[in-house]
Each structure stands twice: as structure tokens, then as C-alpha cells.
């Protein structure tokens, strides 16, 4: 395995570890933390891939949107729901492009 592959697998391990720990913690955490952890994991995954020169403009846009709005889950449920719906629209738009 090359050095760059080894670095990538180390970083991916962190994302996978985060998802595993999140799954465990979510057993006892508020329900809306679930979608929040999922999009945070998605953002971390895109960030990790970008750090290793793997990515696309579409992934960039989705990650930027996640980072812009992910903490709305700390505010109103409706605002978070609207944010997630917008995120899904983005994904659909990318699929159709």
C-alpha cells in the first residue's frame, strides 16, 4: 500500500469510527440527533475524500450546504426539516444533471 493510500485509509477509519460511535450514542440521544449525525458523517466523508484529491463540484456543493445549515437542528424542528428537504432537492438536482 502506498503512503497516500495508507493516509486515506487512516482518515476513512476516523469517519467509520465516528459513524460507529454515533450509532451507539444515538441509542440514548434525542431523535433529531440521528439525521444530524448522518449529514455530519456525509460532510466528514466528503471532506476526507477532498483532502486526498478525490471529489467533485457536486460533492463540494452538498458539503458546503451541510456545513451552512447542519446546526439548525439545535433550533427549530421545522427549520431543520426545511434545511434537509433543501438538501435532498440538491441531491435530486445533481442526479438529474
Amino acid at each position, binding site marked *: 500500500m502506498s503512503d497516500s493510500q495508507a493516509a486515506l485509509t487512516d482518515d476513512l477509519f476516523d469517519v467509520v*469510527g*465516528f459513524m460507529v460511535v454515533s450509532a451507539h450514542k444515538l441509542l440514548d*440521544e434525542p431523535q433529531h440527533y440521528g439525521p444530524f449525525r448522518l449529514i*455530519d458523517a456525509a460532510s466528514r466523508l466528503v471532506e476526507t475524500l477532498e483532502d486526498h484529491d478525490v471529489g467533485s463540484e457536486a460533492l463540494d456543493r452538498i458539503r458546503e450546504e451541510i456545513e451552512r445549515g447542519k*446546526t439548525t437542528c*439545535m433550533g427549530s424542528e421545522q427549520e431543520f426539516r426545511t434545511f434537509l428537504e433543501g438538501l435532498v432537492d440538491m441531491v435530486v438536482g445533481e442526479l438529474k444533471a
Partner: protein
Amino acid sequence: MDIHQAIRTRRSIRRYTDRPVSREDLLRLVEAGCWAPTASNLQAWRFVILTRPDRLRALRVLAPGFIGRAPAAIVICQDVGHIEQRAGAAAVDFCAKMDSACAAQNIMLEAHGLGLGTCAVGSFEVGGLQDLLDLPEHVVPVLLIAVGYPKAQPAPPERHIEGSYYFEDYHE
């Protein structure tokens, strides 16, 4: 900044710049924590300060609530053995949480006064963190505080003052 202004303008910060936090400032935060109210003057708090990239990287895995890339973190632990010895087994949970919360608020307000941002984090693997930090069994992490310079100042969330208090007796 007066106390009321500090209380009203402190925010939970989840986006940080890369600027490191000085050792002096981190020690000042811990000192502020040590001046917090503590049940029966227990002072059972033990603060573990993390600044090394490998430590913070592991923390991002073990603490899903540790959002963003803060350049420092303070793990507020409690020596539950000390609490049990001094205050009894029944007091451990209450004292550990209350004293940690009081210390955390002091730390976060002191940080705000220094221009630092913080975020209290309760979502983390207790056992995993004990392993990572080589904590003995009787020293338990209770709360994490992410510390760093804010990338942006979030808008204040709505606060409901009216309806949250009653004089003399409670009424719906």
C-alpha cells in the same frame, strides 16, 4: 465586559479558526473552572487539556458531539472515588454532574472574556475516553469543552424569559 453582557453574548461555537490557544489561556480557563461552586467543597474535578492533533483527532471519533475542528479541548472529569469517600455513594451522580456543569459555565464565560469560543459537549464514549486518556477507573469524564477562536459568531437563539419564572408559587 461586565458579567451580564458576558452571559448574554456567549454562544456555543461549532466553527473555529486554526489559530492555536495559548497554554496560558488554557490554564486560565482551568483556574476559572476551579473557582466554580462545588458541593461540600469537594473539588473532585480533574481537567484534562487536549491540544495535540492526534488527541483531538481521536476525540473527533469518540465524541460525536465534538463538532468542527477546535484546536483545543478540556475534558472535565470527576474523581468519583473522592466524591464517594467524602459525600457517600448516593451523592456521586448528582455532585459529579452539578460540579462539572458549574465548572463548565465558568470556563465558557472566562473563555468568552478572552475572545475564545467554546461548546459544551455531552455526546461521547465515556469508556473510550477513559482508555484514550489513561484515566483510572475512579476518574470519569463528565463533560467536554471545545475551545478555539470562533470563525463566526452565531446569531442568538430565541430565549423564553417570560413564562419561565414565578414569584412565590407556581401557576400555569
